[in-house]
């Protein structure tokens, strides 16, 4: 007969055992007083591997990168007070992009909560606006269940970060209680939608079949919802043009002929013009962000809009839609595919031919062309070479700025979860720790971090973590000696008054990389870029910092400036070489 033996464990052991039972592979953390019991429990096992970062922000971004690359939740452990507040930027970053994470923070002992005790901050209060949910554990017998709930909430529905704040007395090694990790939990007030409403789905399919100038506008929800296959089948069944948001890149193969590029502020001319002229938009797991819509009252003036999203609050938030479908994008697309296959109508062949012809004319503008004759290194050229050297199959993380946009525009992602960047919060400092998280998840894959000389300095200390845990990544520093994205806005909107958008002192990155135990290379001529990239990726077991000195005057094009519509894009002026350009 099977007798269930209930084990007695301390709170600290319960937490570690719960993570193990949840299948957690890595936790990214940093110790301190409030979590010492926990660290002692971690020390006494090796199923859950702890990655010691150099700053708690790094822990959150590394866990986030791991989550984005794998689809599994990222796990973070920080101490109370400053450890907790250092984690907040990374928590907010994950929140804005709907990334599943569980953040365990230590708290001062329950009896002294509220007394301004040493290293006390109200973590539950501070993180409330930037988490999906948070918990303060008040009873050790509820700890395992709370951890289970945290993972459940973080990973289901619209994913997001969940904080579990644990007072030190809860993890006391001397207080032991029976442990059992629940297989399943339910929360009566939380029931995320799965299938779309049948009537709404049918209405949407009828509209799709009647459309003359349709556009599929898909976003991060397709990546989060593992629905790339369904999106691809759906799009190819219809033969309609498809554009992706910054967060959706890779969900549909960028090298496919139906793909018309990214849309929005730095999207392609063809994608934005198609949106503007369209008579039917179907938004799939995308949230009509202001970087996508431009000026709202000029957004898609002729189109009816269908919107599939798991979060009802994303629907009709900024743009009023005609057909709302709440559900998992994977399920809803499957429902649609079935209906389309059985539909008596077929897509409007004639109208569609004319539409593709029109799109062909917009494509002919070649909005992403750049000066290939320049004696200076063009950042776009570097990304093209990176794409070639990695055969389009690398995981690419990025920081925030011009380099991020160039990576998005010139690296053609054919698979989901390969493009890893902070879109919603736009957090400089994200790229390097995120790359470490990705490399831990996929040790055999090529992992590149495309960054800028300003962004990289925000979490540069994680170079040390990369050495300790042997995560050989390639850092592609597009060094334009400017906060290029800020400088570009100042050039366009502030008559080139470059207020504090450059630094008079920039470190010697080659030496810095070497000081951290890595390989550093500086590249100054276009003809050296390819060889340097090849050499860097050939060094399989080394982290390489490529400091690439690029044309500092280069701007990101196309661009929709603030207050403009999709049809009103600023394009590159293609006369002469832009190296003639002097910055005022």
């Amino acid at each position, binding site marked *: 007969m099977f007798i269930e033996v209930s084990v007695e464990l301390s709170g600290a052991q319960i937490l570690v055992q719960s993570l193990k039972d949840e299948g957690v592979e890595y936790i990214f953390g940093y110790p301190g007083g409030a979590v010492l019991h926990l660290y002692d429990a971690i020390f006494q096992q090796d199923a859950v591997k702890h990655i010691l970062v150099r700053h708690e922000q790094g822990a959150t971004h590394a866990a986030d990168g791991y989550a984005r690359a794998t689809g599994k939740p990222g796990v973070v452990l920080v101490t109370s007070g400053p450890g907790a507040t250092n984690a907040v930027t990374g928590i907010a970053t994950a929140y804005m992009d709907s990334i599943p994470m569980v953040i365990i923070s230590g708290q001062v002992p329950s009896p002294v909560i509220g007394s301004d005790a040493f290293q006390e901050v109200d973590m539950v209060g501070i993180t409330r*606006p930037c988490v999906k949910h948070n918990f303060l554990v008040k009873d050790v017998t509820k700890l395992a269940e709370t951890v289970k709930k945290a993972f459940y909430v973080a990973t289901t529905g619209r994913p997001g970060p969940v904080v579990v704040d644990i007072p030190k007395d809860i993890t006391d090694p001397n207080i032991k209680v029976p442990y059992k990790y629940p297989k399943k939990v339910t929360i009566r*007030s939380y029931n995320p939608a799965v299938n779309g409403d049948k009537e709404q789905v049918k209405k949407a399919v009828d509209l799709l079949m009647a459309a003359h100038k349709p556009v599929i506008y898909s976003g991060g929800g397709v990546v989060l919802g593992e629905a790339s296959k369904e999106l691809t089948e759906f799009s190819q069944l219809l033969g309609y043009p498809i554009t992706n948001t910054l967060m959706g890149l890779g969900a549909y193969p960028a090298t496919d002929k139906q793909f018309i590029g990214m849309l929005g502020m730095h999207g392609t001319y063809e994608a934005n013009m198609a949106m503007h002229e369209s008579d039917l938009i179907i938004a799939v797991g995308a949230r009509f962000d202001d970087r996508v819509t431009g000026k709202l009252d000029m957004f898609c003036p002729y189109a009816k809009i269908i919107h599939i999203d798991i979060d009802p609050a994303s629907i009709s*938030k900024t743009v*009023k839609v005609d057909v709302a479908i709440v559900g998992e994008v994977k399920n809803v697309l499957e429902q649609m595919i079935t209906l389309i296959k059985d539909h008596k109508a077929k897509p409007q062949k004639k109208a569609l031919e004319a539409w593709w012809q029109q799109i062909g004319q917009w494509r002919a503008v070649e909005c992403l062309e750049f000066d290939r004759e320049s004696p200076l290194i063009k950042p776009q050229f570097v990304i093209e070479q990176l794409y070639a050297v990695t055969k389009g199959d690398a995981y690419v993380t990025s920081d925030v700025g011009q380099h991020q946009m160039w990576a998005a525009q010139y690296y053609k992602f054919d698979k989901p979860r390969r493009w890893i960047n902070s879109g919603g919060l736009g957090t400089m400092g994200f790229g390097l720790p995120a790359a470490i998280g990705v490399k831990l998840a996929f040790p055999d894959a090529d992992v590149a971090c495309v960054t800028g000389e300003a962004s990289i300095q925000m979490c540069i200390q994680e170079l040390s973590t990369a050495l300790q845990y042997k995560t050989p990544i390639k850092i592609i520093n597009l060094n334009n000696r400017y906060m290029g994205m800020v400088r570009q806005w100042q050039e366009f909107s502030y008559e080139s008054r470059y207020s504090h958008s450059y630094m008079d002192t920039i470190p010697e990155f080659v030496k810095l990389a070497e000081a951290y135990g890595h390989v550093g290379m500086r590249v100054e001529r276009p003809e050296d870029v390819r060889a340097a990239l090849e050499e860097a990726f050939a060094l399989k077991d080394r982290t390489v910092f490529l400091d690439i000195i690029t044309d500092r005057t280069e701007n990101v094009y196309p661009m929709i400036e603030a207050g403009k519509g999709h049809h009103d894009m600023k394009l590159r002026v293609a006369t002469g070489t832009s190296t003639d350009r002097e910055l005022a």
Partner: protein
Amino acid sequence: MRHIISILIENESGALSRVAGLFSARGYNIESLNVAITEDPSLSRMTLVTSGSEQVVEQIIKQLNKLIDVVKLIDFAENTHIERELMMVKVKTTDHTRNEIRSLAEIFRGKVLDVTASTYVIEVTGPSEKLDAFVAAIAQETILEVVRSGPTGISRGEKGLSL
């Protein structure tokens, strides 16, 4: 437009601040809010009065529903419901005004709860407009304090807000 939203919410510490925080973070109006326990000790009932365009109120309702602690809610604007608010008013009294104030209170079905040589405390219950009307009817210079609970609401008949 004014909306009364009635919410069943987990009776957990922090639940109230999630609602209050949502309103301030997203810049929604909040005219009044009250919360107390229900017959089920694990649940609190909150009544919240807000106003905004239809689009804003739709977002408010979706955002409230999205909070994990919110179990269920109802927007009374689209329902027949009964609305009650409790008010206590402290007024200055003199020998000349006492009768007049008492009869005014009677018209509004108010009750005098406390009497001193120079003050009355009057309780009035009813829909918010009735309380507004009572306050407007008393001579303004005699009002010492006004305390209002904010409205609470319940729907008529069998339909309603329960698990």
